[in-house]
Structure formats: C-alpha cells, structure tokens
C-alpha cells in the first residue's frame, strides 16, 4: 500500500475533532418518535396507456414530509396519522406529477407519461435543480439508453448522444484511449479531458501507463463497469461547471451508479457474447510489383542500372545485395497473420432492494474482450456495493464502493521499429518470412511478425478501488449538511519480456517491470439551504473541499538473461531500477445561490476559490465566479396557452473556470539525479523555474432556448456558447536552445472556442402497441488559437500550433498536382520565390469537424424494440501517415512495403491524375516527389478528408410478455441482438476514419499511423430479472 510518507513536510491533517463532532451529531439526531396511525390506504399505480404496473413511484402526503413508494407490482400502502380525506401527490420520473384526493382504500391511480420530462430533477454540481429551472446547459443520458456496442468504458457508449461532446475511439483495441472533447479544445497541456465524477468521487482519468505501446494508451475509465450505470449527466457551460472551479474548464461528466430502493430484492442477470472481426484493410503490392517500383526509382534517382537492387543474384557488384530479378520475387502475406475473430463474453449479476430505511445494490461483472489483433486482450472483474440507510428522518448515511481489476495483454502496435504493424504491414511483401535454414528471417528494420506473435509477452493489470462514504443531516427541514469522504486508489502494474528471438530482445532478453500507484483522497463538506414561498424558491449552498493526490512508482529493467525460459528480472544479469514520486493538493471553498421567482424567472450564481500546490506561489489561489438566468416564457401571462407550443424557456449564463492539470511542481527550478556517468553519480539541472506559473482560465458565455411543441411530441434545445481561454498552459513551451533546456511549463497564449449545439427529441409514433422516438443531435465548434508567443511544432512535425488556426492543425506543402510533362510534384509556392521551402508550408485543416452529431431511433412494437445509433462527422481531416510510408514511390527500397495505390504513378508525359514520378531527388524548384527515409517535409496528398457517417450500433430486442414471465416466475426477460459498426460511409482511404494514433502527444491529434481499425461486431445478449 501507498502510505502517506512520514517525511513529507506537509501531512494530511484530518481534524479528529471534526469526526468526533459528526459522530455526536449523528447520535443526537438519530432519535425517533413512533407515529400515531389514523388511516391506511392501499392502492396500485398503473401506466395510463399500457396499464402496466409502475414500481418506484413516490407518493407524498401534502403538507407533511411523509412519503412512500410503490413496489414492483405497482402496489403501495400508506399508513398515516392523517384521516381521510387527504391529498396525495404522486410523482415518478418520466410521468406527469398527479395530485389526487384520497377518500378511502383501495384505489387505482393512472399516471400519464411526460416525455418532455421538464420537471425531472437534475443534479447540477452541488445542488439539485428542476430541469425547467436550469440556467445552464447540460445533457442527461440514462444508463438504459447506452449503446449495446462492445465498448469497455462508459464514455465510448455516449458517442453521438450528447451535442457538443466529441468522442473519438483512438483505436479498435478494447480498453484503449478515447479522445474526449466537450465544446472544443481549450488547452494544450493543461488537460482537455472533462472532469469525471462517479457517485461524488472525482476520479482520475489520466492513465498510469509506463510502457511504450507505440502511441497506444490504455483508458483508465475502462476500470469502471458499464453495467452499473444509472445515468450520466454532462455539464457543459461555465455556470454549471464553475462550481468545480479549477477542474471544470473542460466540462464535467457526472456518473451515477445504481442504488437500491424500497422494494423486495430484485436479481438481475445479464450476459452478452458475440464476435468481432476487422475489415477494410490495406492492400499491398506483390513482390514483383515492389521490385519493379524500387528498380525504377533507383534508376530515376541516378543509380546505375547494373547496380539496381533487384538484379540477378549472381551479378555481384561492389554495390548492395542483389535480390534477384523482379519476376523471381515471391509475395509473402504477413498482414493476415495478425488478425483473428475475437469472441467477447460478458456476465453481470446484481441484486438490489431495500426497505423504507435501508437499501442496497450489489453488482458484479466479468468481461473478457479480446482484440481482433492477436496478442491483445482486455478483461475486467468488477464488483460494486452501494448502500444507503436512514438512521432517522433527519440523518441519512450511505456508501458507494467499486473495486475492479482489469488484466490486459498488450502488444506494441504503432510507431517504432518493434511494433506489430511495422512487422505485419510495413515489411516489404517480397521479403521472405523464413531464411534458408527455416529460421525466422528478421528484416533489418522490423521484427519478424511470426516471431513477434509467438514471443510477445506484455501484460498489465489495473487494480482500482473507488470508495465514498457520506452522511447527510437535515438540521432543520430547509437546511441539510452533507459530509462526503472519498478515495480513488489505483495500482497499475505492467511487465514485458522481449525474448532473444526478437530484435527488441537483443542481445540476451530485455524485461521491464513497472508498478505505479496513485491515491487520491478527498473530503467534501456541503451545506444546502432550501426554502419555498408562494412567490419563489430559494436555494443556497456553501461548501469546502480538499483533495490530496500522491503518486509514485518504480520501474525495473533487466537484460542479459541466461535463457528465454528465465523471464523474471531476478534472473537478469544486468538490473536497473528507478523510482518516481510526486504529490499535489487542492483546497477549495465554494458557494452558490439559486432563486426561482413564480416558476418564471430563475437567477443563480456560484463562486469558488481554489488553491493548488501546482501553481506558482504568488498565483496559487484562483477565483471562479459564475451566474445564470432562466426565463420560462411559457409561464408568462401573455404566452398563449396551447398544446402545440406548451413550453418555451430562454437562458443565459456566464462563468469562469480554471485549469491546472499540469504535472506537479512545474513552477520550481529543479535538479535531479540519475544522470550517471559510468559508475559515478551525476546530478543535472532538470527544470527551469517559472515562479510566474498561473492558472489557465476560461470564460464562457452560454445562451440557450428550449421548447416543447406539438402536444409534447417534439422537444428541442439549442445552445450557443462562446469560450475564451487565457494564460494557456503549455507544459512543453519551447525555450531557446541556448538555455540548455528544451521546454518549460508556461502560460503562453489564448484560445477561443465558439459553437452551437442542437438536440431534438421527437415522438413520431406513440400508441399502445407501437412507439417510435427519434433523437437528433448536431453541433459545431470553431477552435482558434487567438494568441501564441510563437508557433509550436510538437511531436510530429506536420502538426503545428499557430496563431489564427485551430489547435493541432496540419502543416504541410499544398500539392496542386503533378506536372503532366515531367511527372514532378507541384506544390503551391506561397511566397512566390520560385523555390519550395519551409516558408511554403501551410496549415490546411485539422481533426476537428465542422459539424458532428448523432441520430438515434428507438422503436417499440409490442414486445419488440429496436434501437439504432448513427454518428456522423463532417469536415474533419486526418493525416494518413501510414499511407505516407506505404505510398513512398519505391524510394524506400527494401525498407518499407508499398501499397497497391502506388501503382498509379506518372509513367510518361501526358499522364494525369497520378502520383508523381518515382524519384526522391531534389526537383529544380527544391521540392521532392517522395521523401527519402530520413526527410521530414510533408505533402498535402496524405492529408485526407475523414468525414463519415457510421451506423454505430443497431440493437433488436425481444422481451417476453408479462403473462409468460409471470408463469415462469421471472419479472423480466429480454434477449437482444446487436450489430456494431456495420456500415461506415467515408471518403477516407485508410481503414478507419476515426483513427487517432498519437494521442499521447498533446499537439498531435488527427494522425493515423498504423491505427487498429474498429471491428464489426455481432453480439447476442440476454437479460433476466427475477
């Protein structure tokens, strides 16, 4: 376990007094009195159309606090001190609230559906607000509406459902990273991920991975099961997120997991199984075609014909090895060796229930999801316990706990000589797999793919525990105090062994073992005050939060193993070890007020102050105010009462949020050790001081309009926002080389994001047997770097951050065509000096789409239902770096494979619509048709439009009718069939338009280099509730 080290200058001072006081208060308040019984009311509540019983419905006695809930058969019992007649208010999520006067028992109550759900209560930060009184922009997705497609984390299942939330699967490998951007990209290094809060626990969403997997990153959100989710709330504008202060700038995603309720225990069992397969792969040239291309390029580059690489084997010259004539070349297929049909299995079992005072939810899940790429595998074992208990009418305590372990098998896929795709895709097809002795033939740059598949040994395991306990005390009916204590503990272990059969295992085996741990403790104290008067409702809250994170780990490497049977580092001849340690703390005070006047006007404001240990001492405290206004126009006298236009709300908000998600201790000038020379210990200056390091701050305006039309069959919401980020944090802001440092964490610029979002829900059909509901979302965001001290090129040189352009814009020479006469490439000569130089490179688009969104259709017919999700994106670009290598005109010789499309190149004067002539020498204007292996100037011909429309998933379900389920003694039984990624329409020439293969580099988004495409999956699921 990661103990809080004693030698730390600061220690966690948990005030014992506080705990004592709390315990005492609990005991005092927990005393109850026995009520007097005067009447007893029995009844049943049914859906007004389907006449199905409704469970979980709340019945409240008017004027007093007494309430009860229906059981699964819709039955309830009211025992009260009141005498008949009395008024009860019946409310249920998704139904119109009904008020009736009860005058005798039993009764049957019919509830009408309310699909606009405007009075649903939403959790906004630290308070709960009726949807109609929201001043902010937010979206809610119910757990049951999450996609059935085989994604390991909840975030992937949200794609296309929330306007303004851009979600890209970086890779088709289960459990790997997802690019998530809410309302655009505000920051470069300050973190762009939204803040994830699971049951009041602010969770860490940056991964602890230490191994280089060629750009592939594991996704820490995959630690959380997707089965236990009740709902997901996405807070978008600053008024909703400012109360999260320094961490709210990228939006907040609140995840609520299932809790028990007052009913008899219910057992739910689910299983899902199915297969995944990858399609749309690259097509490579034959061995003979490869040889001809290389020979032609060799001669065009000025090589002598008699020295061409593919010449008769016995023609020995002083030049390089003779590979034999082109027609003698065989074609070897490596690519198909790495794929497989992957079989997924998922089982989950949960029990939930409770009584008036206590309820519980216990859930467990096992998931095994192999990748369609061999040697990659994701599993998850997770277990959840949520408990709530009412000690009295005033005091409630509860806990949420999740523990999971996610073992993975991994392989290095993307960049780097030892990657699987380099071995399978980039090794030339003519190159024999075996040598004359039947041994694996190792290419000079890449691994032998079979050797790799047989000898890769890389595994990781993330063990994660998320825990929260809370107590909520009603001090007076209008004032509650909630104290919440949380921890997020994550151990990430990984080990790899490269055997001597691999290039990476030379000379005698190489092993790495990493163990990283992170513990985040937080304490939140919150006071909530709510009063209702005839004219309006007032809600006030005040709180305090403290969070402490301790992160550390060790890496041990070993080499010089006695044999491949000895893989543990203990057997290594040479062992090396290193450790890391880091910590951060955040202290916050916040408060807010919300006043709603006559259900027409709502005004609210929040304020938060955050102090972070990461920020330079002089700028440590950040202050984040926000305010909002909501006008329910339809409640005005002048608004005509009409079923065709029943609801109209306008809202506006403004707020400031912050960001300090940089590494710890970036403001200090530091020296570090470990820079040894031979056997001598060395120390070096490792970080330049920047005492001026400030918070990154984002200001956001939001204007929204909500309407409900056509007898509540159509509702829509439209939001416009304008975000402006100042003091942009760049963790790798380049400094002059003469300083002896490469970069510094610096506040270096300003970025704006402006956009519009639209969502509409339409009930196209609504009757007893058939219903059809459509949800359509569309959003647009424009991102622009408004100010930047200097252009920055990072990671890969074709990605650039420059004033006046979107972040991660692609910086290339614009190819106008190929000269039909000479076959040479023609680039736009921007500065008109007749030469193609660096100055002529242009920023020509980015991965950020002009528009994106989704379309969801849900149809139910009797016992059948169909759900289909379509996502689409328009105007996004990808840099097809795979193609850059595979369409390299034969100039890379025997180093790289060539793809089939290369064959369409310029051969004679007059050829048009072709790739340039095969050569890599410098053309008269300074351009090059193809790049030699080491060069680095990029053509726009690899910059592609990656717009797409994708049928993300379609699920057909059949539920056993209740008369059958009753006879077999189950509550519900449903079978589903899901197809995922069935159809994708795109012009993009690579295998998947959603690729993002260098997500580990902040400036490089939109690069496709050996990305694993998302597979097509067919899944069968079964869900039984007892």
């Amino acid at each position, binding site marked *: 376990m990661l103990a809080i080290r004693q030698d730390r*200058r600061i220690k966690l*001072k948990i005030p014992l007094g506080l705990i004592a*006081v709390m315990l005492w*208060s609990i005991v*005092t*308040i927990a005393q109850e009195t026995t009520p007097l019984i005067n009447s007893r009311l029995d009844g049943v509540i049914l859906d007004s159309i389907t006449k199905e019983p409704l469970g979980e419905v709340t019945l409240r006695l008017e004027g007093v606090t007494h309430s009860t809930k229906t059981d699964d058969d819709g039955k309830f019992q009211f025992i009260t001190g009141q005498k008949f007649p009395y008024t009860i208010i019946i409310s249920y999520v998704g139904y119109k609230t009904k008020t009736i006067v009860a005058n005798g028992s039993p009764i049957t109550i019919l509830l009408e559906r309310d699909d606009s759900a405007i009075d649903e209560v939403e959790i906004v930060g630290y308070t709960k607000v009726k949807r109609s009184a929201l001043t902010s922009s937010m979206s809610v997705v119910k757990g049951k509406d999450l996609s059935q497609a085989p994604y390991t984390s909840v975030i992937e299942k949200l794609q296309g459902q929330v306007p303004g939330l851009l979600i890209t699967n970086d890779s088709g490998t289960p459990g790997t990273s997802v690019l998530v951007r809410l309302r655009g990209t505000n920051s470069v290094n300050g973190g762009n991920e939204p803040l994830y809060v699971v049951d009041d626990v602010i969770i860490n969403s940056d991964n602890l991975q230490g191994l280089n997997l060629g750009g592939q990153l594991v996704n820490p959100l995959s630690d959380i099961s997707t089965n236990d989710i009740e709902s997901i709330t996405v807070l978008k504008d600053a008024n909703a997120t400012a109360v999260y202060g320094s961490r709210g700038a990228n939006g907040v995603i609140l995840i609520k997991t299932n809790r028990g309720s007052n009913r008899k225990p219910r057992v739910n069992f689910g299983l899902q199984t199915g297969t995944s397969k990858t399609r749309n792969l690259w097509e490579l040239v034959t061995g003979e075609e490869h040889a001809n291309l290389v020979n032609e390029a060799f001669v065009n580059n000025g*090589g002598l014909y008699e020295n061409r690489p593919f010449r008769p084997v016995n023609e020995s*010259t*002083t*030049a*390089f090895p003779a590979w034999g004539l082109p027609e003698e070349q065989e074609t070897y297929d490596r690519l198909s060796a790495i794929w497989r049909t992957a079989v997924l299995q998922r089982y989950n079992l949960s029990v939930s229930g409770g009584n008036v005072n206590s309820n519980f939810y216990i859930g467990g899940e096992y998931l095994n999801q192999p990748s369609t790429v061999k040697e990659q595998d994701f599993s998850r074992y997770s277990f959840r316990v949520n408990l709530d208990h009412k000690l009295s009418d005033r005091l409630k305590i509860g806990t949420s706990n999740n523990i999971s372990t996610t073992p993975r098998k991994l392989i290095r896929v993307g960049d780097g*000589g030892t990657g699987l795709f380099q071995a399978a895709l980039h090794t030339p097809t003519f190159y024999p797999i075996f*040598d004359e002795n039947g041994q694996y033939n190792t290419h*000079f*740059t890449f691994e032998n793919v079979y050797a790799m598949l047989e000898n890769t040994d890389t595994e990781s395991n993330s063990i994660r525990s998320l825990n929260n306990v809370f107590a909520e005390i009603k*001090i*007076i009916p209008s004032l509650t105090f909630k104290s919440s204590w949380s921890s997020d503990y994550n151990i990430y272990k990984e080990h790899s062994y490269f055997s001597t059969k691999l290039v990476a295992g030379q*000379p*005698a085996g190489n092993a790495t073992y990493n163990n990283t741990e992170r513990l985040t403790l937080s304490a939140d104290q919150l*006071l909530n005050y709510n009063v209702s008067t005839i004219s309006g409702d007032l809600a006030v809250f005040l709180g305090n939060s403290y969070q402490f994170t301790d992160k550390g780990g060790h890496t041990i490497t070993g*080499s*010089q193993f006695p044999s491949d049977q000895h893989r543990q580092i203990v057997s290594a*001849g*040479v062992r090396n070890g290193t450790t890391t*340690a*880091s*910590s*951060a*703390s955040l*202290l916050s005070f916040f408060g807010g007020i919300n006043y709603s006047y006559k259900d027409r006007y709502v005004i609210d404001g929040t304020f938060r102050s955050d102090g972070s*240990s990461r920020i330079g001492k002089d700028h440590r405290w950040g202050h984040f105010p926000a305010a909002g206004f909501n006008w329910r126009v339809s409640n005005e006298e002048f608004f005509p009462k009409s079923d065709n236009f029943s609801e109209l709300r306008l809202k506006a908000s403004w707020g400031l949020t912050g960001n300090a998600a940089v590494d*710890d201790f970036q403001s200090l*000038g*530091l*020296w570090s050790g470990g*820079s040894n*020379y*031979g*056997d*001598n210990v*060395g*120390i*070096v*200056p490792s970080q*330049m001081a920047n005492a001026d390091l400030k918070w990154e701050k984002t200001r956001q305006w939001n204007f929204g309009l909500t309407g409900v039309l056509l007898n509540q069959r159509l509702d829509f919401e439209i939001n416009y926002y304008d975000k402006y980020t100042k003091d942009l944090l760049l963790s790798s802001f380049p400094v*002059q080389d*003469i*300083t*002896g*440092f490469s970069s510094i964490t610096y506040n270096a610029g300003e970025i704006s994001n402006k956009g519009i979002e639209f969502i509409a829900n339409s009930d196209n059909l609504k009757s007893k047997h058939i219903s059809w509901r459509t949800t359509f979302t569309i959003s647009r965001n424009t991102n622009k770097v408004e100010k930047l001290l*200097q252009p*920055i*090129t990072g990671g890969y*040189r074709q990605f650039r951050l420059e004033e006046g352009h979107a972040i991660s814009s692609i910086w290339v020479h614009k190819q106008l065509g190929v000269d039909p006469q000479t076959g040479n490439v023609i680039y736009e000569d921007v500065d008109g000096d007749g030469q193609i*130089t660096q100055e002529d490179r242009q920023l020509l688009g980015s991965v950020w789409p002009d528009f994106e969104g989704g379309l969801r259709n849900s149809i139910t017919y009797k016992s059948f239902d169909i759900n289909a999700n379509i996502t689409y994106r328009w105007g996004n670009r990808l840099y097809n770096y795979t193609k850059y290598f595979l369409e390299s005109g034969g100039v890379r*010789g025997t180093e790289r494979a060539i793809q089939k499309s290369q064959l369409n190149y310029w051969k004679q004067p007059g050829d048009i619509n072709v790739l340039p002539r095969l050569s890599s020498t*410098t053309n008269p204007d300074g351009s090059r048709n193809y790049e*030699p*292996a*080491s060069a680095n100037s990029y053509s726009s011909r690899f910059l592609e439009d990656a717009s797409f429309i994708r049928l993300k998933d379609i699920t057909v379900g059949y539920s056993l009718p209740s008369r059958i389920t009753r006879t077999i003694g189950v509550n519900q039984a449903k079978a589903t069939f899901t197809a995922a990624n069935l159809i994708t329409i795109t012009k993009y020439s690579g295998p998947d338009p959603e690729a993002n293969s260098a997500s580990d580099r902040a400036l490089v988004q939109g690069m496709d280099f050996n990305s694993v495409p998302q597979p097509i999956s067919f899944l069968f699921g079964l869900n039984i509730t007892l």
Partner: protein
Amino acid sequence: MRYQSKIYLLLIMLIWTTSCSDLLDLQPEASVSDEGVISDKKTSLAALYGIYDNIQNSYTPTLTAFNLAGDNVISYATPTIIVPDRNAEDNGGAPFAAFYVTINRANFIIKRVPEVVDNQLTDAERDQIVGEAYFLRAFAYFDLARFYGGVQIVTEPTERIDTHKGTKRSTLAETYNQVLADLDKAEELISGETDRSRATKFAVYALKARFFLYTEQWEQAEEYASKTISNSNFSLVKPFTTFFTDRLSKESIFEVVYTAVDASTYWRSWLSTEDGGNQTYVPEPSLIADLLDPAKGGARKNILKQSVQEPELYAVQLYGKKDGTSSLFALRIAEQYLIRAEARTKKSNPDIEGAVSDLLEVQSRAEVTPLFTHNAVTTVEDVLVAIEEERRLELAFEGHRFTDLIRTNRAAEVLGSYNPLLKEPYQWVFPIPASSVEKDPDLEQNKGY
C-alpha cells in the same frame, strides 16, 4: 438540539479551515530545488558527472551526423545516397540543443563551484572540476563550430527564462576564440593525467592540437600533438582492434565510456541483423574495398565483419559490444600522429621527413603492406594525399571524414562527385534544425537553407 447542531456545524467548518493553512506547500521528492544544490565536494563532482552524462547523449548523434555527411558511411535503407544533402527540416540528425545542455551544465560549475565552501574540497580538486567543465564547454563549442560555423555564445548558467534573451550568433572567429579561451583555462586548471574517461591534461593538449589543425596554426598543432605523443602513457596499441575491443587502452586520450548498467544502444545501429543489430549504418562499398586491401587497410579490415547471408554486406564492429559497453573514441593517439604529420607538412617550413615518419607509425601499427615510401621526387602534395587517405581509413567511423574534406577545401571535388549539391559551399555547414530556429528569434539560419 437545533441550536446545538448549528454550533457544531460552525465548529466543523472552523476546525477544518484552520487546519489547512499549509496544505498547499508541497515539496517534490524526486528532485531537489535549484538553490544551493551545488554545495560541497560531493555535489560539485556529481554536477560534473552530469556534464559527462550529457556527452554520452550528445556525442552519439554527433558521430552519426558527421559519419553520414561524409562518404564513408551510408544508411542501409537508402543505399543510393552516398553523400546526402541537407535542408532545414532534415539536417542529417545533427545535434544542436544537446551542445547547449553541456554548455549550461558546464556554466553552472564554472560559476558555482568556485564559491563552494567545503573543507573536503582541496584547491587542486576544485581546479580540476572547474577545468574539466571548461574543457567540456570547449569541446561543445568546437563541435558546434564544426557543424554550424559561428554560433550563439553563452557563458552564464540559465537561472531564469530570460537569462540569455537577445543573444545573437557570433562569427566563426569569435566562436573559435571562445574554444581557445576555454582550452587555455582548462590547461591552466587541470592537473589530472590518468583517467582517460575524463578530461586530463592530455585531453586538453589533444583537443588543442585538433583546434590548431582546424584553424591552420601548424606550429602550435605540431607542438600540442607532440605533448601527448611523447608521453609514455600513450601509444599506438597492437593489434589495431585492441583499442576498441579493450576499454581505456593506451591508445585513448579521451574516451566516452558506458557500463552495462549505464549502457549505450549504439551497437544496434551498426551490427548486422545476424548479430541482432539493425544495420542502420553501413560502410560505403569503396571504403570496404580499401579497408580490405592489404596495401591500404591492412589490419584495419578487422573493424569490419562480413555478413553470412549477404556476402556483399559488411558491418562495423567499432561500437559492437552487445552489452552496450562500447566506448565512443573522442580523442586517440593515432589522430594526434596524423595531426602532427599534416602540421609538419603544411607549416611554413615543411618537415616532410617528420611527417612521413608519423604517417608510417600509423601505417605500421595497422600492418599495411607495403608501407608508404617516399623519395626525392615525393612532393608535399603526395604526402598530403597520403595523409588524407590515411585519415579516411584510420579514423573511418569516428566522424572525421566530412570536416576533413571541408577544412582542406576538398569537399566540392570529393563529395560533389557523389552529390552535385555538395559543390555549393552553403552545404558545407549544416543547417540549424528548423525547430530550433523557430523557437529562438535571435537565432539566424545559415545562409542557403
């Protein structure tokens, strides 16, 4: 009870707030704050080893870039390119920033070690540490000048982001003056003579000899080369391969060393795939032929290893220890002989006899048969051609060839025959990496790039 609760709530908030006044003052555990880090003998030495640590990192790409730029070494992946040309985006992998990392670390020592108060640190030890820092700074500026011509000169440690703002490039002469000034300081301060993995008196002499060769001060070049040659601790070791199969042999004057724990991966770039390497860099075919020729290469053929599968392919064994302990040979005695031979030939009053005797020392160690012979008709030009050829073979993979051809003004003829662009003088210095120019408004790119 209501009032009680309220009071306790207030108390809770109060206790909480007061206990968190210093919650935000965390100190890093993995690193140490800048101030006072060099405080005694131990930390002074550790900071010095920190410079050597960077030499390990920077000297490898230095060798690679110089080797590939000449006509001795080519990339296996692009066998048609014997001599590449360069552009700002692709400057052949020449390091730039890495030199300034060395310089900054040296500047810290030069400024702070003289101020260290520690009884354990004797004056001689203090001088040695500061002297080595001067030597390593000179070494960095010299290589910067060889790559780029005149560069920005900084002699103060970087303590703030704006410490060096506004520093423009110096001329080549000014940069060379800095090299000489630092070498003079190093000569004055360094007393160590024995540790070949660090800067000794002789390393200073040897680098000075090289410096005078490049600046064509022949008498001084001869004088400084002689200082090491005449010392009995240094000799041409036999057989030829001993200097790289052994470690810190008598051949070495300054050797950048690695250990199995502090290992180098350079061997991967040079060994063939049969030996577990990537054969990234391979010798140029005509150089192979010359090394295999007894009259030219002699025993130096053993620096090569023939491939079994591809008999035309030879891999270089110089950096070939697979446990990563192969050294980089920055200064060795054979170069000093050849420097002296050239200086003796070129000085105003040529000493052909002496020059040839130096040349023969190197040839005989390499068991070349027959040896170079001279007689009455041998001209100065003949000797210079022989020296140039000898340098090409003797120092084949140690990064000398390209700059030798530049400084003797032979680049257009020799390199230009492989790549016409190399006839253009702008190609004789490297372009500063485009990314370095981008981030420094005071850093002007070399003309032509």
